[in-house]
């Protein structure tokens, strides 16, 4: 791929704008709440687009196009079965407790609702996971740019880390959120021409259908059995594992995304945040998955887009190769800017979430409590530097020791799998106790690890030795989904069991934290089309229609 002067100009303008936003916000950062919580002053549409973008890191963009080429339209399950229902749920049902409790972070909500040890478990694992994921994606992006453009990988990593560091240190969470919104528009305008030009070359939707195997053009038709669809998982494992456990676990409890809604300027804005995000999210499969399918269709018909890799294709090159094929100098600059923007703001999202959890949940709670707010503001700023530095360190670790990183990601998936059971019981069952929540999380994590140790996948390798193989799954995805189902169930059952055996929290301590101890949020003052329930039902109906169209 050849980069010319005009592409560099477009990239450079983006860098200037990003830093300019940081400088413009600098004066506002007077206290720690401004810096770490955006002063709870973000309007709903801004928070909504940031909520969506926080998840659209470069790895997500590249990965979704790769999955499109590998699995076809069925990849849309990650959006139309996974993300959307969970986003509606968190907005309509969970946000009243997150926002209403005035908790400053998700771990802090756990402290208010349960106890110190549950918070510590969640805060520690989240903090470690966040900086490591940020490092892993930094490495992935640096490696991609080095491969595509011949740029120096060290320069890519360091320059982007410094830019991210500057705009967060200057403008805090507000700066990160503003840049995420900017990134949203860059992704839409930067990738849309690929879809148009790709469809034009392949002969429109009908041309695409004629050029890939039929299983790639249906999302549900082959889901009856793992053998008849490209994903290698049957409908129940997909629906429960992906649609329920993993998606609700991510969209409803991950502080990275929930933080965007907590920064909204009012309860109703916070509740609308995930719903506003759900509208564009519904249509993202057309932007990120369809280019992958087109790449496959062209490759299978004599236009080699996807490079060979062993007996198959290197699917991760789908999006970059499509860009290389259709984008001349000029438009290429815009496409690369969109990629880099999603890379940098993905990292910024991790760093800002890490800042808040470190400063409030770990430093203020366990290391130096009772200091002035100015002290915590300084700590927040320093944490930005430290968080970025650790991310860069993790990127280099990923470069040197790929296996350790794969292992870490596996362990993270064990920790994440049971989370939603804890929040579900915590918010909707008053009898849940702190001991119940903590031991539920521990056993859920243990169950996920044990499941991994006792199962294998057909033809797949394994990162750890196996204790025994009780079941062989048709694909990694099936193993992952079923592991999540087991983890969730273990956490759910143990939390209920231990809760019934331990003393409940007095009702007075549960105000604003649990259903039944919290007055329902009224949205009567809002116009009907702004009410969360109305928006939620509308989003779900649209998603159902999309599922049927691409059945």
């Amino acid at each position, binding site marked *: 791929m050849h980069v010319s002067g*005009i592409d560099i*100009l*477009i990239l450079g*303008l*983006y860098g200037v*704008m990003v830093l*300019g*936003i940081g400088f*413009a*916000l600098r*004066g*506002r950062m007077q206290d720690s709440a401004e810096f770490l919580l955006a002063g709870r*002053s973000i*309007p709903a549409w*801004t928070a909504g687009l940031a909520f969506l973008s926080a998840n659209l890191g470069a790895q997500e963009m590249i990965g979704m196009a790769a999955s499109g080429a590998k699995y076809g339209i069925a990849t849309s399950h990650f959006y139309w079965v996974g993300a959307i229902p969970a986003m509606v749920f968190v907005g309509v049902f969970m946000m009243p407790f997150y926002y209403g409790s005035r908790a400053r972070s998700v771990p802090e909500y756990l402290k208010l609702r349960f106890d110190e040890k549950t918070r510590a478990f969640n805060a520690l694992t989240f903090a470690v996971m966040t900086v490591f994921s940020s490092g892993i994606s930094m490495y992935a992006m640096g490696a991609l740019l080095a491969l595509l453009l011949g740029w120096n990988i060290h320069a890519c990593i360091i320059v982007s880390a410094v830019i991210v560091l500057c705009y967060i240190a200057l403008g805090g969470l507000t700066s990160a959120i*503003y840049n995420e*919104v*900017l990134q949203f*528009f860059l992704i839409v*305008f930067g990738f849309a*021409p690929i879809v148009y*030009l790709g469809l*034009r*070359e392949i002969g429109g939707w009908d041309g695409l259908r004629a050029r890939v195997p039929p299983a790639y053009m249906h999302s549900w038709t082959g889901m009856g059995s793992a053998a008849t669809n490209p994903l290698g998982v049957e409908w129940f494992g997909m629906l429960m594992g992906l649609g329920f456990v993993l998606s609700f676990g991510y969209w409803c409890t991950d502080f990275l995304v929930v933080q965007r809604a907590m920064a909204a300027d009012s309860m109703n804005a916070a509740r609308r945040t995930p719903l506003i995000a759900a509208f564009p999210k519904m249509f993202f499969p057309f932007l990120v998955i369809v280019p992958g399918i087109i790449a496959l269709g062209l490759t299978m018909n004599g236009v080699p887009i996807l490079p060979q890799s062993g007996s198959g294709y290197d699917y991760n090159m789908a999006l970059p190769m499509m860009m290389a094929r*259709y*984008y*001349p*100098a*000029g*438009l290429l600059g*815009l496409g690369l800017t969109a990629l880099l923007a999603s890379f940098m703001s993905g990292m910024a999202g991790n760093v800002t979430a890490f800042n808040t959890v470190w400063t409030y949940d770990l430093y203020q709670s366990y290391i130096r409590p009772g200091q002035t707010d100015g002290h915590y503001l300084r700590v927040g700023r320093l944490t930005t530097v430290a968080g970025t530095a650790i991310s860069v360190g993790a990127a280099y670790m990923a470069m040197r020791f790929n296996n350790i990183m794969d292992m870490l990601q596996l362990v993270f998936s064990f920790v994440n799998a049971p989370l939603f059971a804890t929040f579900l019981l915590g918010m909707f069952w008053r009898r849940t106790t702190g001991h119940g929540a903590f031991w539920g999380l521990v056993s859920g994590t243990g169950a996920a690890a044990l499941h991994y140790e006792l199962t294998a996948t057909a033809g797949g390798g394994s990162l750890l030795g196996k204790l025994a193989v009780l079941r062989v799954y048709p694909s990694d995805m099936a193993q992952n989904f079923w592991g999540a189902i087991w983890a969730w169930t273990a956490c759910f059952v143990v939390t209920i069991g231990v809760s019934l055996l331990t003393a409940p929290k007095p009702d007075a301590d549960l105000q604003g934290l649990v259903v039944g101890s919290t007055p329902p949020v009224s949205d009567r003052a809002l116009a009907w089309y702004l009410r969360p329930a109305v928006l939620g039902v509308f989003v779900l109906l649209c998603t159902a229609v999309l599922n049927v169209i691409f059945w």
Partner: protein
Amino acid sequence: MGLDLRLPIGLLFLSYGVILTGYGALKPLDVLGINVNLIWGVVLAAFGAGMLLLARRSRRTR
């Protein structure tokens, strides 16, 4: 709100639009028979201008 977000979005996309339109007009690089830089530049410029307009309107009413 210290900074209306529509301002930087508008500025960035308007400048991208102007750059791409100008470049496409001076040096047509056709892809599948379309001068993509020119057409997409006009779209970006229109979007950017729209954002700036919205930002200006809300500043006036305040």
